[in-house]
């Protein structure tokens, strides 16, 4: 049992009325992995997390956390997870300390160990300066930290964080990321985000979800290779200002040419010999090539290639 996956999701489907928010997603997370859930607004990230944390039932499919079914053994699952919901719901009228104490109690930490648990998470999440403040007084960054603290106070095996860095300033984002990395040393962590740098900076693995389906699953390098594969081509930079698009397009195996000033992206079916022929063509036309390289999509492009394009993505249709 020691090496069972932390999370196994199979064919999970969730409908809100006649709207299908999740459409048969399946994935597995191994113990100790940090997995980033990436996807545009309305992709189904929060829905997946609500099902994993036993807040909501799926319409079909199954989800197991630490080997326990979220539906049949809900209480056991809830004991082994920590959860930071999207909008960080906290009891506004409580002191940070009292709130953490309450969570420690409800999470079943023994009386004598509660103080220690609080001290540990306060230190880890950098809450020292606000433990005796009312929660409603806190800045967004500190609220987020309190949310993180309550999610890990009971040292759960699996930590589920829904957009832990949303709405924070760049410094805070870095600090929260460090905390997540720290948590991820021992625990399985799943967190959702829209920020690409974040997943490549923090995660071992990325699951890209769009319109309720998983569209990619792998390390960042794998995903970007996958995109490079589907959008293979060359990036050509030339000296002259004249438009070369039409010329490049006449080459065999070239499917499309995109121009941006002196830089062209030449999309190709095959790569190797196009490069030679392109150099030859440039020489024949008397044009100096400044650079010529194989196209390697960056984060933005990877994200857009994986999630964009196919139908628009609504961002303002969320209810509740």
């Amino acid at each position, binding site marked *: 049992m020691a090496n069972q996956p932390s999370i196994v999701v199979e064919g999970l489907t969730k409908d809100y009325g006649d709207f299908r928010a999740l459409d048969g997603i399946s994935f597995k997370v191994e113990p100790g992995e940090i997995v980033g859930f990436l996807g545009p607004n309305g992709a189904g990230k929060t829905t997946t997390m609500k099902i994993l944390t*036993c807040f909501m039932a799926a319409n079909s499919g199954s989800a197991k956390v630490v080997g326990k079914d979220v539906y049949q053994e809900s209480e056991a699952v809830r004991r082994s997870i920590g959860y930071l919901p999207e909008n960080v719901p906290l009891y506004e*009228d409580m002191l940070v300390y009292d709130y953490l104490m309450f969570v420690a109690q409800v*999470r079943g930490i023994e009386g004598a160990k509660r103080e220690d648990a609080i001290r540990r998470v306060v230190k880890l999440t950098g809450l020292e300066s606000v433990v005796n403040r009312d929660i409603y007084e806190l800045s967004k960054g500190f609220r987020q930290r309190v949310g993180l603290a309550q999610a890990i106070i009971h040292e759960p095996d699996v930590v589920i964080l829904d957009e832990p860095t949303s709405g924070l300033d760049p410094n805070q984002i870095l600090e929260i990321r460090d905390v997540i990395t720290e948590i991820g040393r021992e625990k399985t962590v799943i967190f959702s985000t829209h920020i690409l740098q974040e997943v490549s900076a923090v995660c071992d693995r990325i699951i890209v979800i769009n319109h309720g389906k998983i569209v990619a699953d792998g390390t960042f390098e794998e995903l970007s290779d996958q995109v490079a594969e589907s959008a293979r081509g060359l990036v050509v930079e030339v000296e002259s200002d004249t438009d070369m698009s039409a010329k490049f397009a006449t080459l065999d195996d070239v499917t499309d040419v995109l121009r941006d000033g002196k830089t062209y992206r030449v999309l190709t079916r095959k790569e190797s010999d196009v490069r030679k022929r392109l150099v030859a063509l440039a020489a024949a036309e008397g044009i100096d090539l400044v650079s010529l390289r194989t196209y390697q999509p960056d984060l933005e492009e990877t994200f857009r290639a994986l999630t964009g394009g196919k139908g628009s993505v609504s961002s303002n249709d969320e209810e509740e």
Partner: protein
Amino acid sequence: MQNIMFIWKREIASYFNSVVAFTVVDLFLLITGALFWLSFFSEINVLTMRGFFNQAPLFLAFFAPAITMGLIATEKRSGTLQLLMTMPVTEWQIVVGKFLAACTLLAVMFGCTLMYPLTLDRLGDLDWGATMAGYIGMMLLGGSYCAIGIMASSFTKDQVVSILVAFFLCFGLYLVDQLAGQPTGGVAYAFQYASTSYHFQNIARGVIDVRDVVYYLSLIVVCLYIARTVIASRRW
């Protein structure tokens, strides 16, 4: 069991922090107090709590929903209920913890009114049996209203809707026998049995009958059960 206590404790602390709870308790004491002293000075020779026990239940129909209106509704709105439900707590524990907290506040509130019977006692012979029975009745009645209030609070995210629904139900149950007129047919008896005031008057007379107690306890259990089910239905 422990979880119920943790939830109870959190709610109590929150009551002591809250303007609403203080206002409600103060207003209740002010109004019932004013009425008590008024009748006290006008009928100085009658040393009894009857007046108080006649009026207080009507006010409770408003004040109990006022202290329970936010118990679940605000947690639904802010999302803290969602978070709480992903912790190892059952819906029963949540509902019962909150119910007991509301009852505790009522008990404190009633405790403050003990000065009336104590005053009367100084002046002469007070029937402590009937007075205590009256307080027990108030607690049962208040508890039922709190349970109704918690049920109403579980229906909505909006405190105002919550208090209106609860007020309507409490008031309806209080008056239902009077709407039915003189108890003649079986239907009228059914209305009478459903009425909270009918059972309260029985108890306030100084006779604690099992049937009346069972009535209140069932009302409490049914309402809390509905609240629990409403919360749980969000889950599965």
